[in-house]
C-alpha cells in the first residue's frame, strides 16, 4: 500500500509538473504599447453608492482585443490606451448584480469616452456564483444537487448560532435540537437517515468553513458570506470519503476594496416558553390524584396525608387565609405539615429571560490588500430562577489578503471563538429531570423559618429530589467552556491565464472544559432542627482537540471557441488529535471555592487520547459546450488511518451532466420559460467518519468497578472487544435527477431533485450472534441501506412599485421527503430485536387497541388473555389486579386468544404491527420577504408534515400520574382526561400509577391509541425593519441605519396532543433515537427582540 501511495503521489506530481510547464507556453506576454483613446466610467448601485472592485472588460470582436480592469474605491475605472476602432463593447459584471453589456462604442485616438453605469441587483439567483468543493461554479452551470442558503435571511435573526437560523432554509438540510438551553447547538443532517451506524443519528455532513473542517455553531453568524449544501454524490465526491453524509460549505466574508466600512449591530431580546407552563397547582386535587394512582398500583397512600390533612387542604382551597402549614406531632415528633399551593415550575424556573448581541466589523481594502476584522458578543440568560444560568459567546476574526506581486496573493484568516455557560444545580438537563418528581403543590419550597424543605417525613420521598433545597443553598453548580482558535494561511498563485495554484494550511486548537460541583445542602422538617443532604464532590474534565489540515490544488480554465474546459487537481491531508483529562475530588474544604486542590476526600482521575489521519488526492473536470451541454467528472482517492493497511484507501468517482434545453434554438417555450435545465448525476462516496480510530486493532478494555478492594474502587483490564479484521470503507452510491427552471423573466424559479441512495457495507454490529459468543457482534461492513427522496424549492421574486415607492418581494417554499429501508442485514431469522431486510427505518411496532372496557362485566367476558401487556395491572393490590371497567382493551390481531409479541420475529410478531414511523416526513420551510420604501418585512415558517412519536415511559408532561404517580408537573386539566364511569370517553384509561413507566404496562407497550403525530408548523421568524432614508443618512454621515423587531418561534400549530411539550423537543435529535423520548430537557423558548444596524 505504501508503495501505491508513493507511486500515486509521484504520478500526481509529475502530471502537475507537465501541466504547469505546458501551460506556461500559452501564457500571455505584456500588453503592447499603442496610441489610442481613453475610456473612463463610474459604477454605482441603485442607491447611487459607488461599487468597488467591479470587473470591466473592453472587448473588440473584430480585433479580438480584450482588456480588463476594475473599479476603484470611488467606483471609478479607466482604460487609458484602447486602440482606435469601432465595435467596442464593455461588459461590466459584479457578483450579485446583473451583468451589463454596453455595445457599439467607437474609440477615437486621443479622445475620451465617459460611461456612467448603474448596476441593478440581480434578483434571480440563476446567475449567482455558488461555492462548490475547492472552487466556485455559476449556478446555471451546476450539474449536481447543490443548494445555497440566502445568508441575508440569517443576518438579523436573534440567534445564538447559525444552525438556529438554518432550520427550514434549504429543503433536506435538516436541523434538529436536543434541547432549548441557551446557545444550544443544532444537529445537521443532509437528506435524512443514511446510515445505521452513527448511533442512530443518521449521519452528519462534513462541514467546511473556508475549506477546512470546522464547527458551524461556533461562528459569528454575521461573518458568513455564503453557505452551500452539497447533497448528491457528484457535488460531494471531491471530498470522497469524507462526504458520505453530504457537505456543508461555509464561506466567510472578505473585506471589499474601497472605503473602510465600520458596521455595528445589536439585538436585545427576551424569551418566553413555547409551551404552556400552567401546571396543576391545586393542592387537594394533585395530592388526591397522586394518592389514588399510588394506592391502585402499590396498595398504600403516597403522601401520608390523613383525612384531616385532606380536609384542611380542601378548606384552604377556598380560604387562603388559613396558614399553609401547621406544626403537628406525627410519629411522636413535632414537625411541619405542609398545605401549600406551590407553583413549583415558576418557583424554580423563569418564563422571561433576556438576551443580547453586539457585533462590530471593520472591513475595507486598497488596491492590493483587503481586510476584515470582526467581533461579536452574545449573551443569553437562562431560565433558572436562583443563580440564573448564563450563556456567553465571543467571536473574533481577522482576515487579511494581500497581493504580493502580479501573480501571488497570500492571506491569513484567524478566528477565535469562545463560549461559556454557567448553570446552577445538578446539570443542564438534569435539573429538569430531578425536579419533575415528588414536588407536589401542597409542599412548600421553604419552611416558615426560611430553611429549605426536603422530606415531609409523612413518606420517605424527597421533594423534587431536593433540587430546590440545593438551589436555594446555591453551592451546587457547573460550567462549560469551549474555545476555538483557528488560523488559516493561504497562498494563491496565478501562474498563467486561467491557471491558478492554491494552497492552504490550517491549524485548529480547540480546548474545552467543564466542571461541576455538588455540595451538601441544609434542610429542615422538625422546627429548629437542620439536617444536611447530598454529598460533596467536584470534577473537572478538559478536552484538547487539535487538527492540522493541508490543501494544495490547482485549477485551469480554458475556452476554445464554444468549448470551455475546467480542470482541478489537488491534494489534502489532515491530522486530528484528541486528549481528555478527567479528575474528581470528594469533600472539598470550601463550600464556595471550586478547585481540585481543595478536595480532602477520595480522588479519581482518568483520561483518554487518540489521533487519526486522512489523506487524499482529488480531481475535477468540467466541460461545457456553449453553456448548453454540461459535463462534470469528479474523483477522489482517499486514505484513512482508521482502517487496516490494505483497506485504507478507496477511490470515489462521480459523473454528472446537464442539458440546458432552454438554450437550444429549437426550444419552443422561450419567453415563458427562461431557463430549463435537466441534470443527472451518479457517483460514489465513502464513509470513515463513524469508524473508531483504532477499530481494527484489538485493544484491552479498561474500567473501574464499584467492587471495593484495598479501600478503592477496583481497576481492571479485560478481554479485547472482538474485531473483524477486514474493516473498510462504508460506500454510498447516489443517483440524482434534477430540474432547474426559471419562468417569467426568471421571477419564478424552481428546483426539483429526486434521488436514490444506496449505502453499502455499513460498518455496524454484524449479525445477531448466539449469546455463548460472550461479546457483542463485532463491527463489520455488514449492512446495506437504500434511501429515496426528493426535494423541491420554489422561489418567486418580484420588483415593482407601490404608492410611488419601490416595492420588492419574494416568496420561497421548500419541501423535502425521504424514506429509508434496510436492504442487507445478516439476520436470517428476521428477529425484530435487530435490523432486518425490508425494514423501514423508523418503523414503530405496537399493538392495536379497541378502546376501554366500559363495564366490569365486559372486561370479564373478554375472551382474550392480555396479561402479557398488563403486567402493571397484575402487580396491583387486591381487586385492582383484575381486568375491569376503564382498562384498555387490546385487540387480538392474530386470533390466538393471547395478546403478545409472539416470537418477536417478522414471521411471528404476535399481535404487534407496524403502527407508525418516527422519521420526519415532508419537512418544509416557507420564507417571504417584502421591501417597501424604507420598510422591510420577512417571515419564515418551518415545519414537518408527519412524524410519529410514542411518548417515553418518563414523559411526565404527557402521562402525568400514569407514569410516576408523584410527578410534579401535570397538565392543569389532566383529570378531565381520565376515565371514570362518569367520563367514559376520556383519553386516558382508569387511573393507575406506573402503567406507562414499567415494562409491559398497558400504556408502556406502544399502541396505536397513544401514538402521537408531531406534525407542526411554526412561525420560526418574523422581522420588521425600517431603514433611515438616504437623505437623512447623508446629513449624519452614515451609510446605513436600520432598526428592526424580530421574533423567533412566535407561534406553533401541532397535532401533538399536549400543550406542555414542544413538538420539536419531542422529536429531539435528528431521528429521535438518541433523544430523550421523555422530553424532560431544557425547554424550547420563543424570543422577541429588537435591534439596530449601523454602518459608516
Amino acid at each position: 500500500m505504501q508503495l501505491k501511495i508513493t507511486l500515486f503521489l509521484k504520478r500526481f506530481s509529475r502530471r502537475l509538473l507537465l501541466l504547469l510547464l505546458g501551460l506556461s507556453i500559452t501564457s500571455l506576454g505584456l500588453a503592447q504599447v499603442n496610441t489610442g483613446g481613453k475610456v473612463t466610467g463610474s459604477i454605482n448601485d441603485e442607491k447611487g453608492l459607488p461599487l468597488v472592485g467591479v470587473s470591466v472588460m473592453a472587448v473588440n470582436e473584430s480585433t479580438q482585443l480584450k482588456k480588463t480592469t476594475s473599479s476603484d474605491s470611488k467606483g471609478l475605472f479607466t482604460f487609458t490606451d484602447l486602440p482606435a476602432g469601432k465595435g467596442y463593447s464593455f461588459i461590466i459584471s459584479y457578483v450579485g448584480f446583473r451583468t451589463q453589456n454596453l455595445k457599439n462604442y467607437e474609440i477615437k485616438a486621443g479622445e475620451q469616452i465617459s460611461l456612467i453605469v448603474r448596476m441593478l441587483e440581480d434578483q434571480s439567483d440563476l446567475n449567482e456564483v455558488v461555492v462548490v468543493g475547492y472552487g466556485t461554479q455559476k449556478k446555471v452551470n451546476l450539474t449536481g444537487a447543490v443548494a445555497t442558503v440566502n445568508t441575508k435571511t440569517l443576518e438579523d435573526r436573534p440567534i445564538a448560532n447559525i444552525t438556529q437560523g438554518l432550520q427550514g432554509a434549504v429543503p433536506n438540510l435538516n436541523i434538529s435540537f436536543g434541547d432549548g438551553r441557551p446557545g444550544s447547538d443544532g444537529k445537521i443532517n443532509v437528506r435524512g437517515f443514511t446510515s445505521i451506524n452513527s448511533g442512530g443519528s443518521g449521519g452528519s455532513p462534513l462541514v467546511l468553513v473556508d475549506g477546512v473542517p470546522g464547527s458551524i455553531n461556533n461562528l459569528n453568524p454575521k461573518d458568513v458570506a455564503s453557505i452551500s449544501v452539497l447533497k448528491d454524490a457528484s457535488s460531494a465526491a471531491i471530498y470522497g470519503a469524507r462526504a458520505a453524509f453530504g457537505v456543508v460549505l461555509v464561506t466567510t466574508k472578505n473585506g471589499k476594496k474601497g472605503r473602510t466600512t465600520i458596521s455595528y449591530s445589536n439585538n436585545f431580546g427576551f424569551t418566553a416558553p413555547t409551551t404552556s407552563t400552567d401546571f396543576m397547582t391545586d393542592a387537594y386535587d394533585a395530592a388526591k390524584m397522586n394518592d389514588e394512582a399510588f394506592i391502585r398500583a402499590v396498595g398504600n397512600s403516597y403522601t401520608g396525608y390523613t383525612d384531616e390533612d385532606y380536609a384542611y387542604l380542601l378548606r384552604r382551597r377556598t380560604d387562603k387565609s388559613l396558614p399553609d402549614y401547621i406544626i403537628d406531632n406525627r410519629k411522636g415528633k413535632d414537625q411541619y405539615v405542609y398545605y401549600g399551593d406551590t407553583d413549583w415550575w415558576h418557583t424554580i424556573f423563569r418564563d422571561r429571560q433576556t438576551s443580547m448581541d453586539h457585533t462590530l466589523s471593520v472591513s475595507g481594502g486598497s488596491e492590493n490588500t483587503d481586510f476584515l476584522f470582526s467581533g461579536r458578543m452574545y449573551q443569553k440568560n437562562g431560565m433558572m430562577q436562583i443563580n440564573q444560568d448564563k450563556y456567553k459567546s465571543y467571536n473574533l476574526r481577522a482576515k487579511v489578503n494581500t497581493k504580493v506581486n502580479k501573480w501571488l496573493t497570500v492571506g491569513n484568516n484567524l478566528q477565535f471563538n469562545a463560549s461559556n455557560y454557567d448553570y446552577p444545580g445538578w446539570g443542564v438537563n438534569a435539573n429538569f429531570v430531578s425536579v419533575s418528581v415528588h414536588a407536589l403543590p401542597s409542599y412548600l419550597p421553604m419552611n416558615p423559618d426560611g430553611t429549605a424543605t426536603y422530606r415531609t417525613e409523612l413518606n420517605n420521598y424527597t421533594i423534587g429530589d431536593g433540587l430546590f433545597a440545593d438551589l436555594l443553598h446555591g453551592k451546587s453548580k457547573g460550567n462549560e467552556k469551549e474555545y476555538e482558535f483557528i488560523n488559516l494561511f493561504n497562498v494563491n498563485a496565478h501562474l498563467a491565464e486561467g491557471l491558478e495554484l492554491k494552497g492552504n494550511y490550517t491549524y485548529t486548537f480547540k480546548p474545552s472544559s467543564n466542571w461541576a460541583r455538588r455540595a451538601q445542602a441544609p434542610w429542615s422538617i422538625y422546627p429548629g432542627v437542620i439536617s444536611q443532604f447530598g454529598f460533596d464532590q467536584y470534577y473537572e474534565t478538559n478536552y484538547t482537540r487539535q487538527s492540522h489540515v493541508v490543501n494544495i490544488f490547482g485549477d485551469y480554465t480554458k475556452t476554445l471557441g464554444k468549448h470551455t474546459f475546467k480542470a482541478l487537481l489537488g491534494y489534502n491531508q489532515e491530522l486530528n488529535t484528541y486528549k481528555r483529562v478527567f479528575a474528581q475530588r470528594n469533600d472539598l474544604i470550601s463550600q464556595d471555592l471550586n478547585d481540585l486542590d481543595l478536595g480532602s476526600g477520595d480522588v479519581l482521575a482518568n483520561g483518554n487520547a487518540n489521533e487519526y489521519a486522512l489523506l487524499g488526492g482529488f480531481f475535477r473536470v468540467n466541460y461545457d459546450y456553449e453553456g448548453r451541454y454540461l459535463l462534470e467528472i469528479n474523483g477522489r482517492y482517499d486514505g484513512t488511518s482508521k482502517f487496516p493497511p490494505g483497506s485504507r484507501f478507496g477511490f470515489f468517482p462521480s459523473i454528472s451532466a446537464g442539458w440546458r434545453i432552454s438554450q437550444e434554438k429549437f426550444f419552443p417555450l422561450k419567453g415563458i420559460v427562461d431557463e430549463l435545465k435537466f441534470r443527472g448525476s451518479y457517483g460514489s462516496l465513502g464513509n470513515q467518519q463513524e469508524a473508531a480510530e483504532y477499530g481494527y486493532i484489538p485493544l484491552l478494555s479498561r474500567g473501574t468497578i464499584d467492587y471495593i478492594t484495598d479501600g478503592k474502587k477496583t481497576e481492571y483490564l479485560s478481554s479485547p472487544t472482538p474485531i473483524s479484521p477486514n474493516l473498510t470503507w462504508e460506500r454510498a452510491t447516489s443517483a440524482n435527477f434534477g430540474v432547474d427552471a426559471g419562468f417569467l423573466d426568471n421571477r419564478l424559479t424552481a428546483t426539483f431533485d429526486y434521488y436514490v441512495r444506496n449505502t453499502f457495507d455499513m460498518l455496524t454490529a454484524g449479525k445477531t450472534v448466539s449469546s455463548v459468543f460472550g461479546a457483542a457482534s463485532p463491527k463489520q461492513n455488514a449492512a446495506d441501506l437504500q434511501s429515496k427522496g426528493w426535494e423541491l424549492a420554489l422561489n418567486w421574486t418580484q420588483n415593482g412599485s407601490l404608492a410611488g415607492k419601490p416595492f420588492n418581494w419574494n416568496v420561497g417554499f421548500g419541501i423535502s421527503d425521504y424514506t429509508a429501508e434496510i436492504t442487507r442485514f445478516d439476520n436470517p431469522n428476521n428477529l425484530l430485536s435487530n435490523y432486518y431486510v425490508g425494514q423501514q427505518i423508523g418503523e414503530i411496532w405496537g399493538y392495536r387497541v379497541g378502546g376501554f372496557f366500559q363495564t366490569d362485566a365486559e372486561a370479564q367476558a373478554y375472551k382474550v388473555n392480555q396479561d402479557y401487556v398488563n403486567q402493571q395491572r397484575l402487580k396491583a393490590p387486591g381487586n385492582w389486579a383484575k381486568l375491569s371497567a376503564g382498562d384498555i382493551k387490546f385487540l387480538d390481531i392474530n386470533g390466538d386468544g393471547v395478546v403478545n409479541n409472539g416470537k418477536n420475529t417478522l414471521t411471528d410478531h404476535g399481535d404487534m404491527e407496524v403502527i407508525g414511523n418516527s422519521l420526519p416526513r415532508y419537512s418544509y420551510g416557507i420564507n417571504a420577504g417584502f421591501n417597501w420604501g424604507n420598510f422591510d418585512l420577512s417571515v419564515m415558517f418551518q415545519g414537518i408534515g408527519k412524524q410519529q412519536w410514542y411518548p417515553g415511559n418518563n414523559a411526565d408532561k404527557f402521562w402525568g400520574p400514569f407514569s410516576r404517580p408523584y410527578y410534579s408537573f401535570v397538565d392543569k386539566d389532566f383529570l378531565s382526561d381520565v376515565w371514570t364511569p362518569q367520563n367514559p370517553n376520556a383519553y386516558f384509561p382508569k387511573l393507575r400509577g406506573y402503567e406507562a413507566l414499567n415494562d409491559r404496562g398497558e400504556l408502556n407497550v406502544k399502541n396505536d391509541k397513544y401514538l402521537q403525530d408531531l406534525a407542526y408548523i411554526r412561525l420560526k421568524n418574523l422581522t420588521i425593519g425600517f431603514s433611515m432614508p438616504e437623505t437623512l443618512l447623508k446629513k449624519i454621515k452614515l451609510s446605513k441605519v436600520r432598526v428592526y423587531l424580530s421574533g423567533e418561534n412566535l407561534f406553533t400549530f401541532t397535532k401533538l396532543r399536549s400543550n406542555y411539550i414542544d413538538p420539536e423537543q419531542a422529536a429531539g435529535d435528528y431521528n429521535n433515537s438518541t433523544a430523550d423520548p421523555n422530553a424532560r430537557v431544557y425547554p424550547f423558548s420563543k424570543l422577541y427582540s429588537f435591534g439596530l444596524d449601523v454602518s459608516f
Partner: protein
Amino acid sequence: MKNIKISIIALCILFTACKKDFLDRQPLAQISPDAFFRTESDLKLYTNSFYTVIPSAEGIYNEAVDNVVKSDLGELITGNRTVPISGGGWTWTELRKINYFLENYDNIMPAEAGKKYAAVARFFRAYFYFDKVSRFGDVPWYSKTIAFEDEEALSKARTPRAQVMDSVLADLDFAIANADEGKNVERVTKWTALALKSRICLFEGTFRKYHSEFSLPDADRFLREAVSASDQLMTTGPYSIYKSTPEKSYFDLFASKAAIDQEVILTRRFSNGLQVWHNLNYYTITASYGRPGLNKSLVNTYLMKDGSRFTDKPEFNKIQFYEEVQNRDPRLAQTIRTPGYTRIGNTKILVPEFNASTTGYQVIKYVTSEANDSFNKSDNDMPIFRMAEVLLNFAEAKAELGEATQPDIDKSVKLLRDRVAMPNLNIVAANANPDAYLAAQYRNVNGGNKGLILEVRRERRIELVMESLRWNDLMRWKEGHLNAEPYKGMYFPGLGKYDLDKNGTTDVEIYTGNKPTGPGVQFLKLGSEIILENNTSGGNVLVNPGTPKTFREDRDYLFPIPIQELQLNGNLVQNPNWEGKN
C-alpha cells in the same frame, strides 16, 4: 517563469515532506494484548475484572421466594413465567473474559508464576458454570474463547450436566490448590474456593438426590465433596462464628459497617467516602420498594427460646403479634421489628409499620442507623460467603448422606445456636420426633434421618434469610411448591385497635367505613390497605390473595432458554415443557 519554478520547488518540498507512514496511527491510550500479561500486576489487574459478577447488595438482601413477601410478587413467584425472547440469564460475557485470560496469561509469564491468578480465573469459571447449570441444567461447556467465525462452537449442543459439573469440580480443585492462602475478605482465596465448593457440591449432591426425574448419577460423591470441602475449611481455615451477646451478635454481624472477617469469608464492601452505596435501609422503611416483610411460615419456624417448637403450641396460628414473638429464638428479634425495637443510636421505640412491610414482620437485618435512611445511602458491607453457611452445608451434606453424628452437629449447627444461646440440636431427639409442621413443607424428606434433615433445613432458613440462598435451596430439595403457597402475615382477630408492643398506646387500627382519627396510629382500611383471611372475622394478613400462584413440577425447576437463542442455534433444545422450540 520564476513563479512557476518557485511553485514547483514548493510543491516538491511539500510532497517529500509527506511521510509514508502518515496514515499509520497507533493507539495512544489503550493497550493491545501483546503488550500485556507481562508482569504479575498485569495478571492481577486482569483478574480484577472477574469481580463484576459478585452479586450487588441488592442481589444479596433483596431475596423474595417464600422468605420475604413483597407487594409485587413477580413472575418467578407466581409461576406466571414466560419464555423470554432474549436475556433470561443466558449471558456468557463473563466466560469469554475468563477463558481469554486462561488462554493468554502464560504467554509471557512462566505458568508457575501465574498459577494463583489462573486459580482466581478458574474459581470464577466454576462460579459462572454453577450459575448456568443451576438455572438451565445441561449447558454447552466452553473452555476456550469462541471465534466469531467458529460456527461449530456457536452452534454447539448442550453438554451433559454430569460432564459440566465434573469440569466445575476440576476448576474448584485447581483453585483450592493454587489460590492465595492468606485471609482476605475482599478477594478470592483458597478459603473462598473451598466455600464455593462447599456450596456447589451441596447443591449438586442434593439436586441429584431429589430430582430423580433427571436420572443423574453420583449424588453421594458430590455430597462427600461438600463434606470434605466444608470440613477442610472448618478445620484448617482461619474463620469462626462471630459471638458477642446473644441478643446482639447476629444483628451486629450484618449491621456492622465493615464486614466482621472473623466469620465473613468474602464480602462486598460499600463506602460513604467512595460514594458506593446500597439501598437496604430505604428498602426496609419506604413504601415503594415492595414493602418487604417476613413470611408467616418462616416466622413460625423460629423455635422457642427453650428449644421447643412454636408450631407445637395449640392454635399457634391465632396468636397475636406481641405474644407470638415472646421467648423465641433470639434471631427473630434480630431479623424483624419486635416490641422494644430501637434504631441504632436512637432510644425511640418503634413498632412495625405496615406501609413499609406487607406482612407486618418488618425486616431489620442489615439495617443501620438513621444516617443511612435516604435513598441509596446505606454503606455497610454485604456478606457473599460466611462461615455459618459452610457449617450448615456441612451438617446438611452429612445428614443427607446419613452419616451425621452428634459430634458433627456439635461442630456445626451448635456453633450457630451457641451464638444466640439456643439449646443444641439433638440428633436422636430430632429423628425420634420429626417436626410435623416442617414435614408438611418439605414433602420429599424421608427415611430415618428425616427429623435431622428437617431441623437442619429449619436452621438454614432462619440463619441465612435475606442472603439469597433460598431459591436454590427450594430447587435442589425439589420443594418448589412452597412458592405457590399463599403468603401470610400477622394475625389479627378482626376490626379494632391493636397495641403491637403492649406499651399502652394504639399502634394499628383496622377499620371499615370512615377513617378514624388519632395521633400516631396506623389506620388500615380492611379490604384495601389490609386484607385478612376471614375479612371482618380476622385471620392472618394476606398479601395479594387475588393473585393466583402456581409452580409446575414438570417445568419450573429449570429456566427456559430464550427463544432467540434457539433460533440462532438449531442444536439447542428447550428445557422440558417450556415452549419456544419449533
